[in-house]
């Protein structure tokens, strides 16, 4: 089946800075594709290039199997965009805003009215149709932002951090909505800094940094790519520094951190991690409380792949 998005060797430079360095991307129909990366990694730049908002230096972009150019309005009509910032008219009401953005894709007034009604229901803004954006709470404004991007029922939707500054209830509603859109046949490209969101809804994930793809695959595939196999956490009494050093010296232990009576050991995949750690602690007469083991999270994957140093 033809990929919905196909990007090959995309290069984008800002003077001396390479924002995208031979960036490649393939997204199959029906996927929710997560695009992860630290600030300045090139996520938004890549999306802006795909949408032809930004000029790029090199590379090829195909959408729906056809070359994408700035004048391909036929392709643009099949795309929906939910930008990071709430980008709507402050002077128009909720309904007028959704209707306007829908009109950029759908000419027929009657059909548009039905689509607008559907979008309003979809994001749950039925009680606010006559409100202007300035009168909406942050969460409601975000929902309006989404409604404006999806009202025309696009086949491909770009969500650029749609849940920033949104309360947990609204966030949950947004994520459920995205899954529903996929259920209706849409392909979704989703960028976020919230790893648990990406882990929850994306079936394929790409981690990028410095304009390059560092890793991509399913959630499980990504977790298998890193050294860490599990994280063992033990509630402990007093622990001598020598004991911590002995734990660090264990064969599969990658790191040990002790704080507030909690000992966290990250380990490579091994069937004996828990036993080895507990034996070491007992041998040092450390008082033990609760003990649990967790598989690595996407956050672990992200930090291991992109590094732990702070970014802008």
């Amino acid at each position, binding site marked *: 089946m033809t990929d919905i998005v196909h990007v090959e060797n995309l290069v984008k430079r800002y003077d001396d800075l390479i924002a995208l360095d031979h960036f490649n991307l393939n997204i199959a129909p029906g996927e929710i594709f997560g695009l992860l990366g630290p600030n300045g990694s090139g996520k938004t730049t890549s999306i802006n290039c795909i949408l032809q*908002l930004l000029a790029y230096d090199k590379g090829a972009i195909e959408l729906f199997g056809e070359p994408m150019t700035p004048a391909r*309005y036929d392709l643009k009509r099949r795309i929906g965009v939910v930008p990071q910032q709430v980008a709507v008219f402050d002077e128009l009401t909720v309904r007028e805003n959704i209707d306007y953005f829908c*009109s950029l894709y759908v000419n027929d007034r009657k059909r548009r009215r039905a689509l607008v009604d559907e979008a309003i229901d979809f994001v749950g803004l039925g009680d606010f149709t006559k409100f202007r954006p300035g009168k909406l709470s942050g969460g409601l404004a975000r929902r309006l932002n989404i409604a404006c991007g999806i009202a025309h029922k696009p086949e491909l939707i770009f969500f650029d951090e749609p849940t920033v500054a949104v309360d947990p209830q609204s966030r949950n509603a947004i994520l459920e909505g995205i899954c529903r859109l996929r259920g209706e046949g849409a392909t979704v490209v989703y960028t976020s800094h919230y790893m648990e969101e990406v882990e929850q809804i994306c079936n394929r994930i790409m981690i990028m940094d410095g304009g390059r793809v560092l890793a991509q695959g399913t959630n499980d595939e990504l977790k298998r790519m890193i050294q860490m196999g599990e994280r063992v956490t033990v509630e402990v009494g007093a622990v001598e520094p020598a004991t911590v050093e002995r734990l660090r010296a264990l064969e599969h232990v990658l790191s040990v951190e002790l704080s507030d009576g909690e000992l966290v050991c990250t380990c490579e995949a091994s069937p004996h991690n828990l036993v080895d750690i507990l034996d070491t602690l007992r041998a040092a007469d450390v008082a033990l409380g609760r003990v649990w083991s967790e598989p690595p999270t996407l956050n672990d994957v992200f930090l291991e792949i992109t590094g732990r140093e702070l970014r802008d």
Partner: protein
Amino acid sequence: MFNTIITTAKTLLRRPSTWVWGAIFPVALLTMFMFMFANLSSDGKIDPVPVAVVADETWGASSFKDVATSLAREGDDQLLDVSEYEDLAAARKALKAGEVAGIYTVDDAGTPKLTLLSSYDGSRASSVLTDRSILETVASSYTQNAELMAQIAQDDPAALADPEAVARALSLEGGTRRVSLTRTTPDAATIYYFALFGLVAMMSAEFAALAVVDLQPNLSGLGARRCVGGVSKTASLAGIFVGSWLVSFASMAVAIGYVHLVVGVDFGGREGLCLLGGAASALAATGLGLFVGTLPVKGGKASKSGILTGFATTRALFAGLYGEPAMALADDVARACPVECWLNPVKLICDMFNRLYFFEDLGPFAVRAGALVLMALVFVAAATLIFGRSRYEHL
């Protein structure tokens, strides 16, 4: 595109700044002008000119006294306001005090003499010079007519027996034909109102400029979102142009309506054409706004708004909006560089309305309206070219 037109008009009309610049600003300025020029207008009439006369025996025996008395008779055509003084010293005192504009005396031969002050208040130059001109004309006309009668008495004394022949000789109609140069009575204030129409139109250029900023991805998130939509840049730009023009035209209609209904300028049945002129003015202004809006200048809305305000106010100077010295400057510039009248939209709009108001022939009005439409087309073409080719290195 239709929805873009409606949305543009709707968003502009819901912005307080649109009401400030599109309605409050013109009405406030026109009201100010109305009071400022109240003494200039008066429906083409002038106030009687106060003049002193020395009521001595010579004056009493002079036929010039009869002329002055008849011109001072109360009524719509009263030209003089005569005050009699016993002697020249009292009359001079009144002249120096500014109570009268001049002094009429009559010599032994019955010839009128006019005494004026050698200097006057520069701030009242216009009215002082007008008053002096009237007094001089009255005295010199009397002298010329008296000489004419003396000549007739010498050449053909019998002719003086025929009152009709005397009246014909004294009348201007004998040797001249009365021609009206303008279709309405010239009113010194109207030219300022028309210059203000030019300024109002150019201030409304901002509507298009601000609307087009909301279409540019590098200037607003809204612009980025609109540019990834399924409507071409040209169609979006056209929608913004038409929507902004509607609002700009509404602003012009408010100004024209106010001048007609409140200020009381009578367009003599050409109100429809006046609105047509307003539409052409709004078209040129919107074109300019679109062009400036698409210019790749730093600073976004603020700098574009600044450019347009600066442009409108400086162009208004060369249209003579800021009073008599500015009007004189505008006339000098027009004489020295006639092409400026066609390139300065404020001046062009002012001239267009002047020609509609004063000229019987509609040709000059149509030519100027056409020039404004052409100006709009040039601006729109340039804006389309700039915006259509723009791709962004940074967002």
